[in-house]
């Protein structure tokens, strides 16, 4: 089989962070956010971090939905902080959503991409980012006003500061391949929808 080659001329440090430590370090209080989380790693870890909490809508399919779900939620709930968190594969599937989000630019929305450079759920094939595609540069090109890349533990502090400040931002959290935090979560989307609305809206 032919080997895929890295894109020539792209120099990035090797990913060193373990997502099981880096994601909770960045998202310190996940219960304070309304969250749309993409399949599969980020949905698993945000559900694990909140004990399958009602403030998290974690996808188990519909790949590519999480960032736009977060946009609709942010516009509907301008007084709440909204987090769209997803992986590199999910973000790549609907990459134009970053342009739509940058255009609308709600101040209460943050997009975090946990980039492990692989399709972790399907046999760990290299993703485009694992071969050199740089999502931070794409986000900047789409017009995100704040873009921050985290390669090391030291860079997480700035990520936390950005998450705490108002304004649209994109954070690329580069992690090694490897498992996400995981706990049993509901895979019945209509149950997850109903409990999310019940907790937020009382309906």
């Amino acid at each position, binding site marked *: 089989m032919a080997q895929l080659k890295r894109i020539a001329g792209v120099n990035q440090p090797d990913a060193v962070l373990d997502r099981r430590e880096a994601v909770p370090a960045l998202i310190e209080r996940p219960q304070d956010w309304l969250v749309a989380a993409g399949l599969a790693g980020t949905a698993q870890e945000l559900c694990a971090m909140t004990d399958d909490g009602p403030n998290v809508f974690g996808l188990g399919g519909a790949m590519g939905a999480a960032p736009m779900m977060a946009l609709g939620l942010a516009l509907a709930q301008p007084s709440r902080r909204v987090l769209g968190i997803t992986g590199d594969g999910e973000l790549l599937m*609907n990459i134009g959503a970053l342009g739509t989000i940058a255009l609308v630019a709600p101040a209460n929305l943050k997009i975090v991409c946990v980039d492990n450079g692989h399709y972790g759920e399907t046999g760990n094939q290299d993703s485009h980012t694992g071969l050199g595609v740089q999502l931070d540069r794409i986000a900047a090109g789409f017009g995100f006003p704040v873009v921050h890349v985290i390669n090391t533990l030291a860079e997480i502090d700035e990520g936390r500061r950005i998450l705490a400040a108002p304004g649209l931002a994109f954070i690329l959290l580069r992690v090694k391949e490897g498992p996400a935090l995981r706990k049993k979560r509901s895979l019945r989307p209509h149950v997850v929808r109903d409990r999310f609305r019940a907790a937020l809206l009382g309906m």
Partner: protein
Amino acid sequence: MAEAARPGAGPAWAHAMYDQLRAQGVTQIAYVPDAGHRVMIDRSLTDPDVHSIPLTTEEEGVALLAGADLGGARGVLLMQSSGVGNCINMLSLTAGARFPLLMLVSMRGDFGEGNPWQFPMGRATQAVLEAMGVVVLRADAAQDVMPTIQAACTMVWGSGEAVAVLLGQRLLGAKAF
């Protein structure tokens, strides 16, 4: 409610449709542009109480309106029939989580179409939507629009269904080639 940006521009049914959707509480209007939706788009851009959201592809709007529903807001998704094909897998989000969804679809590859490229998706539009569990209603004359939109709103926000209203080329007029 805001008046039409350019009174008299565009058909009366399109303005009535906009007013009716706003009266139903719609605050997010998402679209990939099409001439058949010009009035809706132009009105949304001048309405201070509406988020007017241009999309790069139609499936973005399916996910957007799911998020809107999680937050207690109502929206509508506008597209040409060719865009229905771009929504197929994303409609599994709508079906699985039972999100209410209202889509307004301007038809191509329909009555009087002069561009052969439009026929394959035009022919498939209704079948594809129904295969994904979306109820399909249709308006082909100006007097059908308001009752069809009213029925769709009741089915979407009363019963929680996903509904697409197809606006036929007999209503919109076929583009000249």
